[in-house]
């Protein structure tokens, strides 16, 4: 009886821990964490979508956080997998995966909105720069002696072209960099050229006065007069204050400003008279009409400039400023004369006589009007 009891106890002693072990294992199996496969997959897919939307460029920080969280999730998944099967816990991995997916979604949204707003900004910048280029080409291209400015402007134009190409490819980050650099160069050259014209156009009220006086005189005396608009490269023939003809002209290459001395390649500005008419036998420029440069005002200014040293003492005032033929070249090539195409000089030569007033001004239109592009 005692022996039987002893054997029974022995069996209990052996089987109890075994069943306990099995029960523990079974509990561990049943309560074991599920691998975070789905969460990781979602995070990866969202990261791919964010990258496809260029979030790595337009939402750098959020995308970086999303990638770092994904990497952490994978790292901790690997660590957990090194543990004994039944003791693995994936909550940290899941948390990182969810964080990654969240960051990636935000990065996608931010990238979309950032790229759209950058695109809008760039469109505006491109429009502004293009306008400056158009103004430069229309009005500043003919400004003399701005070689360095023109060089900067050309470099800016090339950079602007690069920027526009990047913009067309929706590479807005590169486009922004190129367009900003181009803008700096174009802006600088634009401002320099613009300041030259602004200074020049300070004389506009004086030019207006000269023109009005000349037209009044033409009306009152029933006579012809000639008005020259240097900026527009145009010459107008009036009779009794009424416009009769308009001609294109070529000027001296340093056309901005009034003539100061001989050899400055500048066309004078002021109110002059035709003092001689030369036919083809007396001029090498088909037909010519000599004006009375230097007039009293020119002489006084020349003397003053010499006195204050702005003109070297050896310089002479110059003369022989004419309205002549051989023009129509579309370029500023004279030494200060006003050149018309031969068929135009024929027309004007036939109508005017010595004593006709020739008023030469910088512009008939104010700068503000010139700057308005058509």
């Amino acid at each position, binding site marked *: 009886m005692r022996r039987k009891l002893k054997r029974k106890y022995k069996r209990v002693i052996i089987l109890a821990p075994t069943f306990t072990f099995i029960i523990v294992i079974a509990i561990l199996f049943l309560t074991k964490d599920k691998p975070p496969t789905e969460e990781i997959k979602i995070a*990866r897919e969202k990261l791919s979508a964010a990258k496809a939307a260029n979030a790595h460029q337009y939402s750098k920080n959020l995308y970086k956080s999303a990638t770092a969280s994904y990497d952490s999730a*994978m790292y901790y998944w690997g660590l957990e997998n090194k543990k004994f*099967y039944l003791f693995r816990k994936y909550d940290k991995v899941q948390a990182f995966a969810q964080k990654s997916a969240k960051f990636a979604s935000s990065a996608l949204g931010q990238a979309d909105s950032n790229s759209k707003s950058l695109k809008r900004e760039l469109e505006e910048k491109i429009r502004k720069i293009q306008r400056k280029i158009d103004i430069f080409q229309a009005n500043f*291209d003919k400004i003399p002696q701005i070689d360095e400015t023109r060089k900067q402007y050309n470099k800016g134009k090339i950079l602007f072209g*690069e920027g526009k190409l990047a913009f067309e490819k929706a590479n807005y980050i*590169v486009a922004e960099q190129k367009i900003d650099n181009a803008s700096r160069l174009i802006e600088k050259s634009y401002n320099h050229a613009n300041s030259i014209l602004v200074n020049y156009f300070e004389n506009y009220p004086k030019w207006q006065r000269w023109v009005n006086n000349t037209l009044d005189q033409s009306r009152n005396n029933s006579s012809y007069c000639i008005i020259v608009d240097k900026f527009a490269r145009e010459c107008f023939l009036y009779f009794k204050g009424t416009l009769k003809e308009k001609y294109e002209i070529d000027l001296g290459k340093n056309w901005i400003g009034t003539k100061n001395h001989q050899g400055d390649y500048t066309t004078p500005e002021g109110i002059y008279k035709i003092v001689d008419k030369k036919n083809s036998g007396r001029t090498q420029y088909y037909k010519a009409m000599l004006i009375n440069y230097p007039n009293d005002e020119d002489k006084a200014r020349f003397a003053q400039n010499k006195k204050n040293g702005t003109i070297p003492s050896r310089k002479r005032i110059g003369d022989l400023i004419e309205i002549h033929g051989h023009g129509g070249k*579309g*370029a500023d*090539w004279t030494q200060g004369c006003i050149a018309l195409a031969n068929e135009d000089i024929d027309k004007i030569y036939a109508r005017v006589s010595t004593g006709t007033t020739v008023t030469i001004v910088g512009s008939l239109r104010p700068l503000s009007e010139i700057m308005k592009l058509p």
Partner: protein
Amino acid sequence: MKNKLLLSLSAFAIAMFVLSGCAKVPQVEIDNANLAIQEAQAAGADIYVPEAYSALQDSFNVANESIEAKKSKLFKSYKKEKAQLVNVVALGSDVKAKTEARINELKAEIQNTLASVGTLVEECNALVGQAPRGKEGSTALMAIKADIATIQTSVAEVQAAVGTESFIATLDKAKAVREQAASIKAELESVIEKYKSRRK
């Protein structure tokens, strides 16, 4: 009876242990795939074929996740993942080849663009010769000559950039220079055309 029970318990434990850890992680394949990605990146795949490069990285990530998912299981086999990784290696070679092909395309396009710029510069120089000249032979087109000189400087810059900067950026630069050269030529042609029409 007691011994039999102990024996079967031990056998179950050993079987569990063996089955849960018998399949080895395909480390060689992982290393090869990694190497293939690195080689594609070194060739410039992320710059020149970004979509293909992203797809390559994505395939590798999928394989990696699948491996970790298998590691998380009690009974595992990496056959499918091995095949995935072999595919990644093949895809890596393909992406690398595509990158090299794209680079060669870009190089050829840069050279063609520069050649057309060269032709435009020659044409501009010839047009300057035809442009109206004034008294004492001085030309009114000094500014345009300076513009042409800027183009020539820019061509030299593009040539220097080949191989040192991204070929995409270099090509854009070459195209922008060509556009500028073409606009100078158009400007010259319009001046000459105007001059010729007035002389008729």
